[in-house]
């Protein structure tokens, strides 16, 4: 079916997706592993374990029909639809509250359903730097991670292979790597070549950037064909999303149940989780039992589920002996600037960027956060989107489009936010979701170190744009910054059960058979997009689950 109006609004209780009589949503008998969440974290765990174990994945959202991707793309282009409408986010299912100093647009920052938020993501995938794992000792900010870059390094290699990463080894600031990326990097863009001259005269280095996006056929998926709407939807499948690993896990025997939001986790008297209680669209409630549980519900729903699972034995919520579940909520802050040149800049052909600058990242200390810079290939308006709003058509519209498109340039950047216990996810007092569970309440606060660093990033961005001869039209500084939609920190990892929710293996301190695969375990966040690290940790979790099931 074609057309933006031919797909549903899942979060609002729409019936699109795989409901209907044919779907069996009853629990799987004798399951070894129950995974909560079918985003990249849950999908990778499930795929890795499915060959040797009976695995069940429960996801709150629907299975999206791949045939509908172009209709979703149309939603991305048409002005009527807000971003959350593209993947049916919103409504009673996804209700939430904001109570902090800073507004957090949660439903722009996630997708629920098979594939999770990678259906919407941009697909930029970098490794964290070595110092990011030791922020406390090298920068004096936050705790050190209980693991090092070296512990994750082999898993980074595997994660790059699993997601399919196009990249090159020309980045002198990147952490050490042992072998090339699975695919060659995308060629620099035309506008990169304009930036390159300006950067060279300023002594600023540009280099390629790793993309979870096919630069050539990979893993039976198409190479990028240039639809240019990567965020929020790639119709060709060139951009990695977690449906890849869900499908593979199912081929290996895993059972994936969609539209099955887990309501709570139940436990026995021996500190083991016994059951994931989930709802179905038919209004039933089922209990999925398993020997091991992996919670991979994203950085907001993961702490929420633990808090919703409180009991007499765990009155403050499951795995919350430390009291830290939900605390230290972090995101990356956006810093950007843009303007126009008096020549064509060739923007909006593709929806991803091809060059970056990590030169300033490791200058970080107590007062300056790590940050990275990005050179955009999608600055300024896209003509087709412009055409759909305005009072004009015919020749006047064409004139307006010619005026508006063609000469924009822009830079972006991400800045680390330091962990702060007051920045947190809790349960709302008197607001519930479609199943009567308290909705997540977000109190997001951002400290001065991040805000000062945004200014520092802006200075460099403006310097580059001016050297380029651009007329600088906008600067997204501390007052105009926003989150990059990376939810981190809410079930932090620590070797000390009083200071963290999970241990160095991402297993909860309090419950022996419960792991968390998510950026919620990050003790500090660095300034690199998190998903490659999430993927590496997920693969490591799978190995630990496998080893412990083998012992039992």
């Amino acid at each position: 079916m074609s057309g933006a109006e031919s797909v549903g609004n899942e979060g609002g209780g729409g019936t699109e997706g795989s409901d209907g009589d044919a779907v069996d949503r009853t629990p799987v008998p004798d399951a070894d592993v129950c995974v909560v969440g079918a985003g990249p974290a849950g999908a990778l765990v499930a795929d890795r374990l499915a060959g040797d174990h009976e695995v069940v994945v429960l996801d709150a959202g629907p299975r999206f029909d791949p045939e509908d991707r172009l209709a979703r793309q149309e939603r991305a282009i048409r002005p009527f639809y807000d971003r959350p409408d593209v993947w049916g986010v919103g409504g009673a299912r996804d209700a939430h509250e904001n109570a902090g100093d800073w507004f957090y647009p949660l439903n722009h920052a996630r997708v629920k359903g098979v594939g999770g938020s990678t259906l919407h993501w941009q697909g930029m995938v970098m490794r964290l730097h070595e110092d990011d794992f030791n922020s406390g000792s090298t920068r004096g900010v936050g705790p050190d991670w209980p693991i090092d870059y070296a512990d994750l390094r082999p898993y980074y290699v595997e994660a790059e292979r699993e997601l399919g990463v196009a990249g090159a080894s020309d980045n002198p600031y990147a952490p050490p790597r042992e072998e090339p990326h699975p695919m060659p990097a995308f060629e620099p863009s035309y506008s990169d070549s304009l930036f390159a001259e300006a950067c060279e005269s300023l002594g600023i280095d540009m280099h390629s950037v790793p993309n979870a996006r096919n630069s050539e056929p990979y893993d039976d998926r198409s190479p990028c064909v240039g639809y240019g709407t990567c965020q929020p939807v790639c119709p060709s499948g060139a951009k990695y999303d977690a449906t890849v690993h869900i499908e593979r896990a199912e081929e290996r025997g895993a059972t994936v149940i969609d539209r099955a939001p887990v309501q709570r986790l139940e436990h026995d008297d021996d500190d083991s989780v016994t059951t994931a209680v989930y709802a179905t669209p038919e209004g039933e409630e089922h209990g999925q039992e398993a020997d091991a549980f992996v919670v991979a519900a994203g950085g907001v729903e993961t702490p929420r589920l633990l808090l919703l699972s409180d009991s007499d034995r765990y009155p403050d919520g499951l795995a919350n002996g430390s009291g830290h579940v939900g605390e230290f909520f972090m995101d990356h802050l956006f810093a950007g600037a843009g303007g126009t040149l008096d020549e064509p800049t060739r923007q909006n052909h593709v929806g991803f960027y091809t060059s970056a600058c990590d030169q300033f990242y490791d200058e970080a200390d107590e007062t300056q956060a790590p940050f990275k810079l990005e050179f955009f290939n999608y600055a300024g308006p896209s003509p087709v989107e412009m055409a759909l709003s305005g009072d004009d058509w015919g020749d006047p519209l064409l004139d307006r489009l010619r005026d508006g498109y063609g000469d924009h340039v822009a830079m972006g950047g991400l800045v680390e936010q330091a962990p702060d216990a007051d920045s947190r996810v809790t349960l709302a007092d008197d607001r519930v979701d479609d199943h009567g569970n308290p909705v997540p309440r977000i109190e997001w606060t951002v400290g001065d170190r991040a805000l000062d660093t945004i200014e520092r990033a802006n200075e460099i961005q403006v310097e580059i744009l001016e050297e380029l001869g651009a007329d600088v039209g906008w600067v997204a500084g501390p007052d105009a910054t926003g989150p990059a939609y990376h939810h981190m920190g809410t079930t932090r990892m620590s070797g000390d059960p009083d200071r963290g929710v999970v241990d160095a293996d991402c297993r909860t301190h309090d419950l022996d058979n419960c792991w968390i695969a998510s950026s919620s375990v990050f003790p500090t966040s660095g300034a690199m997009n998190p998903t490659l690290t999430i993927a590496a940790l997920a693969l490591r979790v799978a190995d630990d689950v496998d080893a412990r099931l083998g012992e039992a």
Partner: protein
Amino acid sequence: MELTRRDAAAALAAVGATGGVALGVRRAGDGGTGDDGSAGGADGAAGDGEGDRSPSDEAVREAMAAVATAVYPDAVSGVESFVDGFLDGRLDGSAHAEGIRAAVAELESSARSWYDAPVADLETAERDELLRELGADTAEEDPHGTTAERVRFFVVNELLIALYASPTGGELVGIENPQGYAGGAESYTRGSP
């Protein structure tokens, strides 16, 4: 600039319909055998062209092509076959297709009451006037909104998305690989042709 079959196929691909245009064939269901079943006046209306009688595929095509001459810039030619080709894939019995049909019905009904003629028989300037009188110029598109908002969504913007997500439409503006068109992963590396 001439709009081609390739443009129509590209525009269709951009919005998720495949349609006969790619193969150069017309779908068998053409000519009023849509799901609505009311194309032949099954609602018992007198058949005088007024009221909310649901137009046939053929009538939708004619009206849309007529509106396109008003909302497309003068620089493009080949509009009728482009729109026709685009609608080959778009009138596929989906909820969206029925939205187009209903909006065209309302547009036709206004044309008949205000100009005493179907949209296709109006001068280009009158088509422009009709859309403005309906308020489709200032309306923001909304598939569930007022008549003006629905005409904007299902008629005006439907045609504009078809044009500007096609290579020829993009080229008019200076982007041969516009958003929504799978124009490959090389054009972004090159300067202006």
